[in-house]
């Protein structure tokens, strides 16, 4: 099967307009006859649910939390980008497109990225109208801050809780539709499989997490907005229940999975402090606007940070990257931290951290300004560590954070299964090999609110005569049986190793060899270890409780079973790409000064993997063409 990105013809800046002028529509009277299943209620799934319901489709939205307001978009802190040019600092849609393509190391699709930049402008208007209390100047106009990898201020923010505020607006828009009866929400429900009829996505099999009941739901199209799978590393900035299962099970039904190994390791999270640790809390990238990152010049320096004078500190980002300094993109900052820690300059009990210091900024701007900008982050830091960061520098460390990879989608956000769409972090679009800060709230919101509701009509226009899809068919029987069989199999293992313990072991393998720096030997080792662990899981996992009723252990086990397969594909993907690009840093492919070295001749493509069973995969390539941007070596020096 050849990949068709369905990019509209025409000049880059007109593609989206031309697409909309020529696509098919569903008339308002017919929309009532069309059912759409949305999985996920974060910014992408929630935005899609509310917007599709407003248009008059029958929408059913599924998510595993008890309320849509708790989807993990809620945790985003720093902000959302838009090319409004409110600061008159020369920002344009093209500039934002340029920064995003460059930030992603020339590994994303031009047309999608340009559309995201175009729609960013509307998103701020939309969210403001919904009541998002964005940061403002005393004049009453909207305020901006800078994020890594760019030279303008285009980030809009609501203190350090931007994701929460955008999600509240989205959730409230959903609740309005629930009241109107156009949207039905299924909270505490988990998707376990997809039903295909004549090759088209026609429904899902879900588990009601309260009663344990397995249910069938049908629709004319299915949309996945199920977020990222960074929790595969066990320790990550993601929520405990974030998972890759929805996209993975779609993959096993025929949806290609693209660039699975491209994971963003965020440079500023809290370091691991002990073995039982379950989460690495993020400290927003926005802190790098005013915080300076350093390590002691001397190895194994045991002095307290405030006792180390300036000349004995190594502000290594400012030293190595004078143009961008502390605001280099995340992959660069994380690798630079790893390099210093590997060289023996790490700080803290486990020598696994670096300092993020506000002394200079507090001296210049005063504590009050810093408090207003980042107050909640400093409070959060204090609550977790017990340390007052106004008085001594924060200790920070790289942590798994964001999945650039995900289901392969075309320009319409359609996967390789007709009628199955993927939005937000669940798809692979827009960010290439490295995502820029504050671009992902944007992508999730834009996909859900503006793109998908427009593109899905092009597909649904052919469905107006289909009529309701029955669920008493052999396709639903088979899918339901497979799901029940898997649950029985999990519960019959009755082994001795707790699920979390196996997950931690997986996380260790992945963080060691399939994270910030990769090499052939390590990846081959990782693949073997993952296979061994998968075997251990299926023979020795301790999964207690039963299938009828609430059972968190069973939920975790199902997700881990999938992670143990995703992990293998991640390692295979990393092994197959003999170049360094963005977050994918292969130690064999570096320039003389130690920076990532791309190989555009051979690897200017997105890798889309097809599931062949067992597990085994076939690689398909979407070759990338750049007409509107000159392909260069990415440099932040």
């Amino acid at each position, binding site marked *: 099967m050849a990949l068709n990105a369905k990019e509209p013809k025409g000049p880059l800046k007109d593609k989206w307009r031309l697409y909309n002028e020529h696509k098919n529509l569903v008339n308002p009277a017919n929309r009532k006859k069309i059912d759409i299943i949305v999985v996920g209620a974060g910014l992408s799934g929630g*935005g899609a649910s*509310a917007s599709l319901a*407003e248009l008059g489709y029958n929408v059913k939205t599924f998510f595993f*939390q*008890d*309320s849509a*307001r*708790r989807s993990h978009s*809620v*945790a985003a802190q720093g902000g959302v980008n838009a090319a409004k040019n409110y600061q008159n600092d020369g920002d344009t849609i093209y500039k934002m497109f340029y920064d995003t393509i460059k930030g992603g190391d020339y590994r994303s699709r031009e047309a999608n990225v340009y559309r995201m930049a175009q729609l960013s402008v*509307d998103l*701020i*208007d*939309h969210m*403001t*109208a*919904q*009541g998002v*209390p*964005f*940061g*403002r100047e*005393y*004049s*009453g*106009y*909207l305020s901006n801050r800078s994020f890594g990898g760019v030279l303008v201020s285009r980030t809009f923010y*609501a*203190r350090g*809780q931007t994701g929460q*505020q955008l999600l509240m607006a989205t959730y*409230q828009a959903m*609740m*309005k539709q*629930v009241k109107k009866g156009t949207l039905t929400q299924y*909270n505490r429900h988990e998707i376990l499989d997809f039903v295909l009829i004549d090759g088209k996505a026609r429904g899902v099999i879900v588990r009601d997490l309260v009663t344990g009941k397995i249910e069938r739901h049908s629709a004319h199209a299915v949309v996945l907005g199920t977020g990222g799978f960074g929790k595969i590393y066990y320790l990550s900035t993601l*929520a*405990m*229940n974030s998972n890759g299962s929805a996209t993975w099970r779609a993959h096993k039904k025929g949806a290609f999975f693209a660039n699975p190994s491209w994971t963003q390791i965020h440079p500023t999270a809290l370091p691991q402090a002990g073995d*039982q*640790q*379950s*989460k690495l809390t*993020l400290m927003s990238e926005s802190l790098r606007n005013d915080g300076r990152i350093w390590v002691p010049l001397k190895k194994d320096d045991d002095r307290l940070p405030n006792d180390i004078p300036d000349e004995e500190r190594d502000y290594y980002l400012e030293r190595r990257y004078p143009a961008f300094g502390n605001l280099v993109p995340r992959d660069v900052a994380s690798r630079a931290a790893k390099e210093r820690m590997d060289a023996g300059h790490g700080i803290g009990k486990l020598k696994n951290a670096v300092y993020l210091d506000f002394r200079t900024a507090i001296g210049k701007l005063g504590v009050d300004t810093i408090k207003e900008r980042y107050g909640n982050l400093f409070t*959060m830091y204090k*609550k977790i560590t*017990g340390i007052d960061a106004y008085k001594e520098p924060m200790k920070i460390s790289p942590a798994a954070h964001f999945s650039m990879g995900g289901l392969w989608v075309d320009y319409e956000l359609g996967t390789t299964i007709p009628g199955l769409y993927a939005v937000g972090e669940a798809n692979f679009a827009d960010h290439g090999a490295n995502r820029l800060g504050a671009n992902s709230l944007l992508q999730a919101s834009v996909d859900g*609110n*503006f793109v998908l*509701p427009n593109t899905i009509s092009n597909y649904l226009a052919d469905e107006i005569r289909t009529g309701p899809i029955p669920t008493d068919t052999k396709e639903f029987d088979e899918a339901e049986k497979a799901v029940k069989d898997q649950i029985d199999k999990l519960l019959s293992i009755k082994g001795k190793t*707790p*699920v979390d*313990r196996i997950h931690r072991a997986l996380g260790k393998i992945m963080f060691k060899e399939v994270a910030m720096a990769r090499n052939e030997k390590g990846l081959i080792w990782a693949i073997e270890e993952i296979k061994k662990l998968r075997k251990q899981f299926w023979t020795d996992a301790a*999964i*207690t*409780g039963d299938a009828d009723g*609430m*059972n*968190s*252990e069973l939920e975790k086990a199902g997700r881990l079973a999938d992670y143990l397969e995703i992990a293998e594909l991640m390692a295979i993907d990393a092994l197959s790409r003999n170049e360094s690009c963005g977050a994918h840093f292969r130690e064999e492919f570096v320039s003389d000064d130690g920076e990532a070295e791309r190989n555009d001749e051979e690897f200017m493509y997105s890798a889309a993997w097809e599931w062949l069973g067992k597990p085994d995969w076939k690689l398909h390539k979407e070759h990338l063409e750049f007409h509107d941007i000159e392909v260069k070596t990415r440099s932040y020096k």
Partner: protein
Amino acid sequence: MKITLKIWRQESAKAKGKLETYQLNEVEQDMSFLEMLDMLNEDLAVKGERSVEFDHDCREGICGQCSLVINGQAHGPESHYTTCQTHMRSFKDGDTIFIEPFRAKAFPVIRDLKVNRDSFDTIIQAGGYISAFTGNAPEANNIPIHHDISESAFDSAACIGCGACVATCKNSSAALFVSAKISHLAKLPQGKVERKERVEWMITAHDEEGFGSCTHTGACAMVCPQEVQLLDITRMNFEFNRALCIS
């Protein structure tokens, strides 16, 4: 640290629950409270026993999913913390800790420590939104909003919907939760258009869902992880009276 746990176990909404005792001997100060419970659940899994069900997701104090009453206090001993932000350094070796679910008529227990908070969604559905359809919005800077007003709206909008206010209130009132949303939207020019209907509908929904009335003891504001202000309740009462006056 050695810790003794007395945990509420209850099979289902209808079943009777009781406190069960568990012992943990290797708890560390640096662990979060929920990591301590993970440790217990791992022990139970090895023994082949059903794990303790408790709600949690983000584990960083923002999603509002975690919901425990620890030694009689909603979210535990530190004020303005969520359960997931609570760490074992707030306890000492040899302590006995009582862990129960959030209790309120409008929050029925699902299993063990998990409760059903759908009633909060119902209240928001009644009017906790601005009716701006996708695609309708004017240019954002066309509505200048004074810095302080925007900041003040944020203070109310910061509510994470955890329900600690209800769990701690002797009347099981959700006044703080409802007033936070009413205040957030009433403070902003965009939200003023629907303010009358919003306050009427949301307060009606609050009462219908079985939450108690507010007698202004202020206990809710003492536990609120986002420090939503008691003043919001006064503001809600103002909005309600305003609505009565103009109808």
